[in-house]
């Protein structure tokens, strides 16, 4: 019945431990299954008195001397008693761990790790300069995650670093991949011959993940920060990165990913590339960029206008064989894409016409906006491209809307949406309530730094969204783009499976996903010429 109790004791001769440590061990033992009471203490009169009060003054305990340690336990049955006594012995012999050491300043960290070769800095932007400079002075490369770093500081740091051959990756750089290790928000991409220089975090993530999924790999991925390709910086780190990639024996081709650089900087970078590189280049500037390729770059440079094309072209240059095998899987031919989406968009009511794209990745947002622009679709956004409309209230969608949930207005005082799905979940439900919404498009960015289960975190909201639409006699076409690889902490395949189980159409690249969203909203009726232009000019690169 309930009152059964077994007791047991152990004495360790001449074993000394501090009373605090012993108290902690007693507490641990009391938490074990089946343990009623436990005392672990030195064999002093006082402690024996306490043992007596607990009904644990067993013969062994009584015989224990001042410098002996006794363990006495009362448990519900033999098995628990035995386990508890074993645990007690284990805890007594374990070293005291106070957890891992965390340092208060760089000097002491350097003393502990004197041959550090890389630092990640994510302090508030106003302090980034001092912290970064301290590290650069020691010859340590810096991945500078901090944003809101004053422009003068960025330029000062980059000039200082460039003169010494030191990399400053950032500011505001979300992603790097160095020696096959993910730095900040990055994916578990295998190593291979493609070197990537990116001024666009999610861009680096998508291109590297696609390369991995197409069976190739990345030598290194250097995030130089969005500011680098603007005139106030003039491409300082892009250039240093180019020379690093050129010198690196494991890099066979060099791929660049960024929003279009400002003209002066673009020319400066191309000039530098001409003089300082010999390897093949893929220039992945998102969108159509007016370029005057210097003579020395002609014949070894490809120009790509989407992340999709950047990845495919990089693969093609390394292995035409692999390219042939994978290209149709990624660049899904239009008819096939239409056939895939038709059963879904057929169910839409005629009053449902709008696309609502809810993004966590900034670069993916821009690419999506570009695709819609090319298709002649009028779009509202909180981060519109030239000629597109700005949302009056970023929290309220109008017409076709593409939101970048990573922008200030959504992230002030909150974690980034790649980590915290709260805002998007709420937004998704709002969109479902709108009877004019036809298609919802979302990105699920995997990798280190991201939410441990982005797909899973949205399932309830997706189900509720569908229910809301159903009750109203409506259907919703939900399209998801999963950015990542199988080796990511979240596991690509499992994430894809979870979404597909909810009827979400998961497509292989962001560009295709955007195209599919447009296709669905317009019931397959896209302008032939525009579609052709996208496939020929944007989903494919051109080799110069």
């Amino acid at each position, binding site marked *: 019945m309930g009152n059964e109790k077994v007791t047991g004791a152990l004495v360790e001769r001449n074993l000394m431990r501090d009373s605090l440590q012993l108290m*902690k061990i007693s507490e641990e033992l009391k938490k074990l299954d089946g343990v009623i009471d436990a005392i672990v203490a030195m064999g002093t009169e006082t402690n024996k008195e306490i043992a007596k009060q607990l009904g644990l003054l067993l013969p062994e305990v009584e015989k224990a001397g001042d410098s002996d340690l006794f363990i006495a336990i009362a448990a519900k049955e033999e098995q628990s008693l035995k386990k508890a006594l074993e645990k007690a012995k284990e805890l007594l012999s374990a070293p*005291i761990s106070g957890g891992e050491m965390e*340092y208060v300043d760089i000097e*002491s960290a350097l003393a502990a790790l004197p041959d550090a070769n890389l630092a990640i800095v994510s302090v508030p932007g106003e302090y980034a300069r001092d912290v970064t400079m301290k590290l650069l002075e020691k010859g340590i490369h810096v991945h500078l995650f901090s944003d809101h770093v004053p422009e003068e500081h960025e330029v000062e740091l980059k000039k200082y670093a460039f003169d010494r051959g030191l990399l400053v990756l950032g500011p505001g750089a979300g992603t790097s991949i160095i020696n096959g290790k993910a730095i900040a928000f990055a994916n578990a991409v295998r190593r291979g011959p493609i070197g990537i220089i990116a001024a666009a975090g999610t861009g680096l993530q998508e291109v590297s993940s696609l390369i991995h999924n197409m069976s190739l790999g990345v030598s290194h991925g250097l995030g130089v920060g969005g500011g680098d390709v603007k005139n106030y910086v003039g491409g300082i780190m892009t250039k240093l990165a180019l020379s690093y990639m050129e010198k690196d024996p494991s890099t066979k081709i060099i791929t660049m990913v960024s929003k279009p650089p400002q003209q002066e900087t673009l020319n400066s970078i191309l000039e530098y590339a001409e003089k300082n590189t010999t390897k093949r280049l893929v220039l992945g500037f998102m969108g159509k960029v007016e370029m005057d390729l210097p003579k020395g770059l002609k014949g070894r440079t490809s120009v790509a206008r989407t992340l999709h094309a950047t990845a495919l072209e990089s693969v093609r240059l390394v292995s035409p064989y692999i390219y042939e095998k994978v290209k149709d899987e990624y660049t899904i031919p239009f008819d096939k894409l239409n056939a895939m989406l038709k059963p879904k968009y057929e169910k839409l009511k005629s009053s449902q016409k709008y696309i609502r794209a809810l993004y966590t990745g900034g670069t993916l947002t821009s690419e999506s906006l570009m695709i819609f622009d090319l298709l002649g679709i009028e779009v509202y956004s909180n981060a519109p491209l030239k000629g597109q409309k700005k949302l009056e209230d970023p929290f309220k969608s109008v017409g076709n809307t593409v939101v970048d949930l990573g922008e200030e207005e959504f992230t002030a005082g909150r974690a980034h949406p790649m980590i915290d799905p709260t805002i998007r979940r709420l937004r998704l439900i709002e969109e479902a309530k709108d009877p004019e919404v036809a298609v919802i498009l979302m990105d699920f960015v995997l990798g280190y730094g991201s939410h441990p289960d982005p797909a899973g975190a949205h399932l309830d909201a997706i189900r509720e969204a569908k229910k809301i639409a159903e009750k109203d006699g409506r259907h919703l076409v939900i399209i998801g783009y999963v950015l990542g690889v199988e080796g990511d902490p979240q596991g690509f395949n499992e994430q894809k499976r979870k979404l597909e189980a909810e009827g979400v159409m998961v497509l292989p690249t962001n560009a295709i996903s955007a195209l599919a969203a447009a296709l669905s909203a317009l019931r397959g009726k896209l302008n032939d010429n525009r579609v052709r232009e996208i496939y020929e000019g944007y989903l494919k690169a051109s080799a110069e």
Partner: protein
Amino acid sequence: MSLKEQIEEANKKAVERMMEAEPYLVDTKLAKDAIPGFREDMLLHAGPPITWERASGPMKGAIIGALIYEGKASNEEEAIKLVERGEVILKPNHEVGSVGPMAGIVSANMPVYIIEDKKFGIRAFGNYNEGIGKVLRYGAYDKEVLSRLKWMRDELYPTMKAALDEARKDKGGINFKAIIQQALHMGDECHNRYVAATSKFMNEIAPYLVKADVPKDAFNRVWDFMKNNNFFTLNIGMASAKAMTLAAHNIKYSTIVTVLTRNGTDAGIWVSGLGNRWFTAPSPVPKGVFFPGFTQDDANPDLGDSSITETAGFGGFAMAAAPAVVSWVGGSVEFAVENTKNMYNITYAKHKYFTIPYLSFQGTPTGVDIRLVLKTGITPTINTGIAHKKAGVGQVGAGIVKFPFELFKDAFKAYVETYGA
């Protein structure tokens, strides 16, 4: 000379005096007889000035207990009425040159140790340590506490007095600086770990107890009391530190901190060149490990004069000498070493006599300089016992605490006003 040069010269002198002071335990007397300026209606307490209304649980409990001990009140209500009527003068220990751990309450008829600095002739005082568990300094005042305090006055005190009289006759008293020096080489830091120091002290005092020919049963009880309480000599160490910091105090232009203390409500500091002027800020709640059944929510803000040990260049500043202290205050052995290293950033010198074997016998960080605190933002980080916020519950844990930055900022502002330039 520029003000900067004057500061350098003054600090050098202050820290030199702090290190060269030679505190000896020379005698023991009741507080009313030992401490100049002590009044019968006075209660000394730890930390900066405090009023009854603002006092925390443990402090209030200790005040009540002391009043009952003195026979001024027979119970809690009477004691409280006494204080509320303004009939009790509360005065910080530091203002009369004494120190006490936790609530640090010293009343007229409590015995105190008398420390004399043989080098500069300064005197400092410290009360007796009651042991651990339910004790007055944590705000407990039940029958057990009061009868122990009585025993300490009626038997412990005369026994110590007899022994110290012999010690004084023999070699001027017990050289406590030497004991601290040795203890730092034996795994103590002499604030939260006093195992070696108490051991050495018992070594030193034993022959004098014998010579003093105290009654055998008294001797046994006293010896047992010392043996069962590693912190027996904490208060002697604190008073020694007080003497050392007094030697560095009141030196014109000096920016060296000569008092770091707390009363359970406020933390406070003195700066050598600014005399007995208090700079205060709310006392932080220590973060640490708690005894079974207690959590961070039960913790009282930091209290006690024991941070005088860090002020004198040992205690938590010498944690690297006492890795075993982490089983008491939590954290890792590496943290203990790092804390000492970190404190070098805000101190003026390395101690000439107190050295740390593990750091190649480097001197301990000595002489907190308010200029360095302002420059680095690093404030003195110490380890400490944690009291329950309710009076009388006692110690609930131990941990780490940092002195608030504002103390040093306010002191620096005052310094600039005072010395102009």
